[in-house]
């Protein structure tokens, strides 16, 4: 098992290195002069030169890459052009709210998706049909559309949920939040700020639903398919012969090996959800990574864009690694390869 972990870690490192290189290469394609973007259109030639030196733009490409790569490792991710702050600091500020959103969405997706898949596999008939069509629909709907539709129905028509920001801004005065993790829900819980907690949860509902939709569909489908396949296996026939009831078989004996592919899906879906928040956050004014990324893209803020891309690349690689490890833990056959 230890050897397996080590091997996967090394693989991940190689891929990470490639991620940095690729991102850098893409960033180099940006038309225009980053120095101008940084200093502003009215900067004089001298100023531009100074900025160029400061940003290291006068060095050859490979050296820039090397600098950048070592910078990433040491914690210097450059300075964002549109906020004039260090990129890493910006990221530190905007990541927690996104984590909150994506985390909640994934939790919801697993809590809803897996039971739905099991239900569809066990019941068959029209229940199965409805769940299959439903998951198909969820998988076919663009997240940004869902975000808008939810806004339309649950906010404008029914006025049930808010659509802007993480919490009611009035609470900044009446019940200000002590910021610990920068995740509003978590902080509110930790400090016992119930008013804030309520407002935060209330604000979380719509964006969370929008982001969770696709994962629910995928997870439900995958669970159903995997469980159905597992139910045809020999060990399930044996379990029946041993006197286990269908209920126990479907919900435990067959489910455990069947969850294997579902776990790997969750990692894929997590990264997918992370990127989807770009659109959802800008629609709901959620102060997270997504809004930051969209703003960076609109401003052609290259260092920020690279920072976001590398960050998500890292997250994705780690997520895949985590999934591989969890799979090996769940299915003892895997780690022995």
């Amino acid at each position, binding site marked *: 098992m230890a050897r397996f972990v080590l091997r996967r870690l090394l693989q991940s490192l190689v891929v990470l290195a490639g991620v940095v290189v690729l991102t850098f290469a893409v960033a180099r394609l940006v038309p225009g002069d980053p120095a101008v973007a940084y200093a502003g259109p009215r900067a004089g030639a001298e100023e531009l030169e100074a900025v160029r030196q400061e940003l290291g733009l006068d060095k050859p490409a490979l050296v820039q890459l090397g600098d950048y790569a070592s910078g990433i490792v040491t914690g210097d991710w450059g300075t964002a052009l549109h906020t004039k702050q260090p990129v890493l600091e910006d990221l530190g500020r905007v990541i927690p709210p996104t984590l909150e959103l994506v985390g909640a969405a994934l939790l919801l997706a697993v809590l809803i998706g897996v039971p739905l898949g099991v239900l569809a596999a066990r019941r068959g008939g029209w229940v199965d049909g409805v769940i299959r069509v439903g998951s198909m629909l969820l998988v076919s709907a663009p997240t940004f559309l869902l975000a808008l539709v939810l806004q339309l129905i649950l906010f404008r028509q029914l006025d049930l949920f808010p659509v802007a920001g993480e919490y009611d801004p009035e609470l900044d005065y009446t019940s200000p939040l002590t910021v610990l993790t920068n995740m509003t829900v978590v902080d509110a819980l930790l400090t016992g700020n119930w008013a804030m907690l309520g407002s935060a949860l209330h604000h979380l509902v719509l964006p969370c639903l929008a982001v969770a939709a696709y994962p629910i569909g995928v997870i439900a489908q995958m669970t159903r398919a995997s469980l159905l396949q597992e139910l045809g296996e020999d060990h399930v026939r*044996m379990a029946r*012969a041993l*006197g*286990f009831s269908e209920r126990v078989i479907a919900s435990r004996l067959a489910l455990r090996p069947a969850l294997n592919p579902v776990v790997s899906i969750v990692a894929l879906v997590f990264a997918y959800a992370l990127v989807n928040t770009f659109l959802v956050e800008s629609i709901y004014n959620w102060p997270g990574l997504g809004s930051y990324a969209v703003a960076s893209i609109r401003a052609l803020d290259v260092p920020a864009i690279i920072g976001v891309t590398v960050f998500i690349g890292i997250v994705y690689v780690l997520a895949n690694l985590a999934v591989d490890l969890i799979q090996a833990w769940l299915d*003892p056959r895997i780690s022995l390869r």
Partner: protein
Amino acid sequence: MIAVRALEVFFGDRRVAHVPTLDLAAGELVGLAGESGSGKSMTSMAILGLAPALGATVSGSVKLEERELLGLPEKELLDLRGRRIAMVMQSPRGSLNPTMRLGKLMERTLATHGIEKADARDRTAAALADVRLDEELLRRYPHQVSGGQAQRFAIALAVAMRAEVLLADEPTSALDVTVQAEVLDTLNRLRAEHGTAILLVSHDLAVLGRYADRLVVMRSGEVVEQGPTRDVLTAPSSDYTRELVAAVPVIGAARPKASA
């Protein structure tokens, strides 16, 4: 113990097995012989009431000591399965849950049938001893044991449950010839020491000849011959049986002998 009468198994309109009579007495090892597709596996499935789960319909009568099994409510069937009638299947490691350690499987099976923990522990130890398996195996996963060990473990499950009837559906077909003997000898001991009634389904006449008291030969879903093993093998009354016997490879001129 088991009395099968007029058993018919259908897949839709197609009849895949027809057994007019089949009796299994305590301490008896009856061999159910035939090629693939002869309906022998479906017969054993039907006895356990597992045929519907495979999509088949069953008619006729299967009695366990005067109690009719066909048509019993699922709850009662669940109680019987594993506890009074056990099964060992063809794929040794495939029939064991890949994510469960053997010990855990044993534990859960016994617990499902309401056997208390202390009792379960004793039974497990005794069962393992019976099948000559080391207790250390309980900590392993199915893919970490050999095929022979896996089959003997499956038999141990039946022993721990004190099942009176054991349906062995091609238990050795996927095993090496040398390992086959281990498993079959285990079955034989079960019969001798615990008085278990065993239905041994196999396509291997040589194996059945050695271990079975009586033989039932099936072909294309029909029973073509039935009787004491020695009689069936030495003086078969059906052409098919004659062909099967002739097809068995023998070293020297030794005839397959029936067990006492």
